[in-house]
């Protein structure tokens, strides 16, 4: 018998507003139900209509993104993650998701549960996660609170992923004041599944048992989804009880048990319990299947006494899933999960009623239409947009507003940039992650633009990367988002892959602010343009709004997770490390390209002149495509010894990084000159790749490039025994030893955190 419960509070408009619903939304609920919702129903609406679950403020924009592609196996939004056919009977499931707000309040558990949640999204599809990447943004490391957040987030990611047994192989870390009170933690998981063994997230067949598997249910994380959709304020530290606690050990058991259950064919449908727990999984599975469910909440195994139906439905206890199966298979499920010391408790049945009914003993505590709560009838908003006023000021910047660099100061400027935490080595971070477990990591973090993973049982691999320069997007949302896609694709290309598909994580401020919403709309527009031009459809992702704090909104930050396929794992993986003395380096650019006198949005302008101003670098998507196609062809033809894309810090930093990553090798390079010295060295013009070839292959390189209209290769110079020597025009402007370059690059982050 269920316990007798205290009388729930009276539901009225004030309580609805307390739950984060708007007055209009409350009217819509009254109208739809024809009655006042129960307390439990109000709780369900409040989480399911939060931005985190409903995407009510973003759906209209996201629908403009390209989602078609012959390799895509899952329709966007229908399943937990995108699914891409990579041939040889294998598909790749991948997705990126934010855990910003929980991480701002409790960085360790916030980041850890973010990692756990995204891996669950992948293995509910039947795919075994093979790697994780994390895209992180913090304020300046000079602030002690930021160092605390940075340390906690890195430990949280490491401890969860290391124990779970999936390597963390990449990502990015940026430090900008705009993220000071509101760090971004975007976690991406990539998994592999045989194409005939995927699992679906729909409850399609009435009569099927509904089984809750995994850990027990406690009070942790109640209203986490609502919390994730509110602005962070001074009181957020008080909200700690809302943050869930992760248990990677239990999740490892859940992974093995779930993959075993899917392999045994006893799973008809399965959905992860992320935000909003049983509520989201039950309503979403019913909405996807066009069915209903009867749930008996007093059967849910709890870990605390006296939990109410409201609490059971909204609990965000981690490491749980909802499974539907053929009648009779629930015993097999219980056996499999029992072998891994986990619960598999039947809590209900799929119905044809078109309603999810939640029972507590003889009482019905909620009866709601899944389409209205989680399906096509969820409210969708078109928000007002207005071009932000700050753009007038930032766009008025001209390079001539700052003095050009003297040749004598080049070394100082370069070492300053190499020691900027945004550019400096992230070794301190990635050495805390297990980057190799399960022995698929061909190229680990460090000397490469993207990580390369092998697909055991095939000759193929994956090249994966996350990217998103928030400063560019702040200065020009449309162009900045285009660059995020282009650069992620360029990184994958330089690592030896062919970009095939994208997952995105859209981190923005309060959507009710028209200026914020304008940046969101512009960024999605740019992202769509770039994805169409580069042939990389968006397979899904996540939106995180309300990323604000008392000092203002974050930079608008769309993060791109790019998936690439490496066709031949034995010949194509390429890194940014130089290979052999005497090799010849080239700068590959669009045809007719010359150095523009631009500094807008660069790391140089920010670090050396302390200005975030100007416009993001121009980008022509056709040019970008040509450069990437040429790079891919050169790698396929076996002509490339090393490749590195030119990005933050410009050409000088690109070359210096390759020298730093190449023990005992260096570079002599003559840069195409003219114009400003600072722009030539540190300008961040797009669509550029530095690569090297064996001296004997120079002619073959020319031949391959001749077949590629729209690109040109400028010969920079030879690979030398060490150091970096740069000549611009006729003047040697730098002659630096390897130690001069490596010291600030390796030391910056360890020095800043201790």
């Amino acid at each position: 018998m269920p316990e007798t419960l205290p009388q729930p509070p009276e539901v009225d408009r004030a309580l609805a507003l307390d739950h984060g619903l708007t007055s209009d939304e409350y009217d819509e609920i009254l109208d739809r139900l024809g009655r006042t919702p129960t307390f439990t129903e109000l709780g369900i609406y409040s989480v399911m209509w939060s931005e985190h679950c409903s995407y009510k403020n973003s759906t209209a924009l996201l629908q403009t993104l390209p989602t078609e592609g012959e390799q895509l196996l899952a329709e966007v939004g229908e399943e937990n993650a995108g699914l891409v056919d990579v041939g040889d009977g294998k598909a790749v499931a991948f997705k990126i998701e934010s855990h910003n707000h929980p991480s701002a309040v409790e960085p360790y558990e916030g980041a850890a549960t973010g990692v756990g949640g995204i891996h669950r999204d992948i293995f509910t599809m039947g795919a075994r996660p093979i790697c994780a990447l994390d895209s992180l943004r913090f304020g300046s490391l000079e602030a002690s609170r930021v160092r605390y957040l940075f340390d906690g987030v890195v430990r949280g990611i490491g401890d969860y992923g290391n124990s779970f047994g999936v390597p963390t192989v990449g990502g990015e870390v940026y430090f900008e004041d705009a993220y000071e009170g509101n760090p971004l933690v975007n976690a991406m998981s990539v998994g592999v599944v045989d194409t005939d063994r995927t699992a679906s997230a729909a409850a399609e067949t009435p009569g099927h048992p509904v089984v809750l598997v995994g850990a027990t249910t406690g009070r942790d994380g109640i209203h986490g989804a609502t919390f994730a959709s509110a602005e962070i304020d001074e009181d957020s530290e008080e909200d700690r009880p809302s943050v869930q606690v992760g248990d990677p050990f239990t999740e490892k058991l859940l992974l093995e048990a779930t993959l075993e259950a899917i392999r045994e064919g006893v799973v008809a449908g399965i959905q992860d319990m992320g935000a909003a727990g049983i509520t989201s999984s039950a309503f979403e599975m019913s909405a996807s299947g066009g069915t209903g469910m009867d749930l008996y909440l007093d059967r849910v195994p709890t870990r605390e006494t006296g939990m109410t139906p409201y609490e059971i439905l909204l609990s965000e206890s981690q490491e749980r899933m909802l499974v539907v199966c053929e009648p009779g298979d629930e015993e097999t499920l219980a056996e499999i999960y029992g072998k891994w010391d986990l619960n598999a408790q039947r809590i209900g049945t799929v119905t044809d009623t078109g309603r999810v009914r939640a029972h507590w003993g003889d009482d019905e505590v909620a009866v709601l239409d899944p389409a209205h709560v989680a399906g096509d009838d969820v409210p969708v908003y078109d928000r007002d947009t207005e071009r932000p006023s700050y753009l007038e000021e930032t766009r008025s910047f001209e390079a001539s507003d700052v003095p050009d660099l003297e040749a004598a100061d080049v070394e100082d400027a370069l070492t300053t940039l190499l020691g900027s935490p945004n550019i400096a080595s992230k070794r301190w971070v990635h050495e805390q992650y297990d980057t190799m477990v399960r022995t698929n990591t061909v190229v680990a973090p460090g000397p490469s633009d993207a990580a390369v993973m092998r697909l055991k049982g095939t000759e193929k691999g994956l090249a994966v990367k996350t990217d998103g320069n928030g400063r560019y997007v702040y200065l020009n949302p449309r162009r900045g988002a285009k660059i995020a896609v282009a650069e992620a694709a360029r990184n994958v290309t330089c690592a030896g892959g062919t970009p095939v598909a994208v997952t995105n994580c859209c981190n923005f401020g309060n959507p009710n602010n028209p200026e914020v919403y304008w940046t969101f709309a512009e960024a999605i527009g740019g992202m769509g343009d770039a994805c169409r031009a580069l042939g990389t459809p968006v397979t899904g992702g996540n939106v995180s709004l309300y990323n604000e704090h008392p000092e203002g909104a974050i930079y608008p930050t769309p993060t791109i997770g790019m998936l690439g396929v490496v066709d031949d794992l034995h010949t194509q993986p390429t890194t940014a490390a130089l290979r052999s003395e005497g090799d010849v380096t080239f700068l590959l650019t669009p045809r007719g390209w010359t150095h523009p006198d631009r500094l807008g949005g660069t790391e140089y302008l920010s670090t050396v002149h302390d200005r975030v101003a100007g416009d993001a670098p121009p980008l022509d998507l056709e040019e970008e495509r040509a450069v990437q196609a040429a790079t891919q062809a050169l790698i396929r033809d076996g002509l490339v010894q090393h490749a590195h894309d030119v990005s933050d810090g410009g050409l000088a930093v690109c070359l210096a990084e390759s020298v730093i990553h190449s023990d005992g090798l260096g570079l002599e390079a003559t840069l195409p000159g003219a114009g400003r010295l600072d722009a030539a060295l540190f300008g961040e013009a797009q669509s550029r790749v530095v690569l090297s070839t064996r001296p004997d292959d120079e002619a073959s390189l020319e031949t391959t490039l001749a077949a590629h209209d729209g690109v040109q290769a400028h010969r920079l110079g030879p690979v030398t025994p060490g150091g970096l020597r740069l000549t611009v025009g006729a003047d040697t402007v730098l002659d630096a030893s390897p130690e001069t370059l490596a010291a600030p690059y390796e030391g910056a982050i360890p020095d800043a955190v201790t």
Partner: protein
Amino acid sequence: MPARFGVVVFPGSNCDHDAYHAAHHVFDQETRFIWHEEESIGDVDVVIVPGGFSYGDYLRSGAVARFSPVMQDVVRFAEEGGLVFGICNGFQVLCEAGLLPGTLMRNESLRFVCKDTPLRVENADTPFTNGLTEDQVVTIPISHGEGRYYADEDVLARIEAHDQVLFRYSTADGEVTDDANPNGSARGIAGLVNEAGNVCGLMPHPERCVESLLGGDDGRLIFESLLAHVSTVAA
């Protein structure tokens, strides 16, 4: 003669597949997983106790795993002279089970660390190292948060006296220095054997570096040592 490998699987083991992959797919040996609830390890020549986070590493790394049914048979096998190879978490389990002296504590840095580490070979006359030479430097990755080897001075003296240390963390030139010690291990100890020489614990992961595709293959030398030993014994 080929060797038969058994790889123990605890809840939370996560390098079990890596050990299996190395023994079975790379070295083409008969290899089976041994579930922690099995009471017999069956007919095997080498038992690998793999890395990971057995039982979540709760309480202390390896502390709970040693009570699982399979460990009783592993102890019997070891006492009868069978080859037992504990890698990372497996090393911790073997120490907790009393098959190896000392214990492994939290890294001095208090941080998890994953990177390639050069190791100097100290004893090349064991079943695990016969394919190496003394003072040779091999590079094998570590990946652990609790790898600081500790034993009291008497035990350390005894281990050294019996030549039980197989590997020490060193520089690429083979110098054992504080800077080359990634976790604060006593006397730079990265791996050792029991007095009888048939039970080995190693913090670094040789199973992660047996294929040049993944960036290094010095781990092959340890597997080749085991294979050579098993076929010598059989011959």
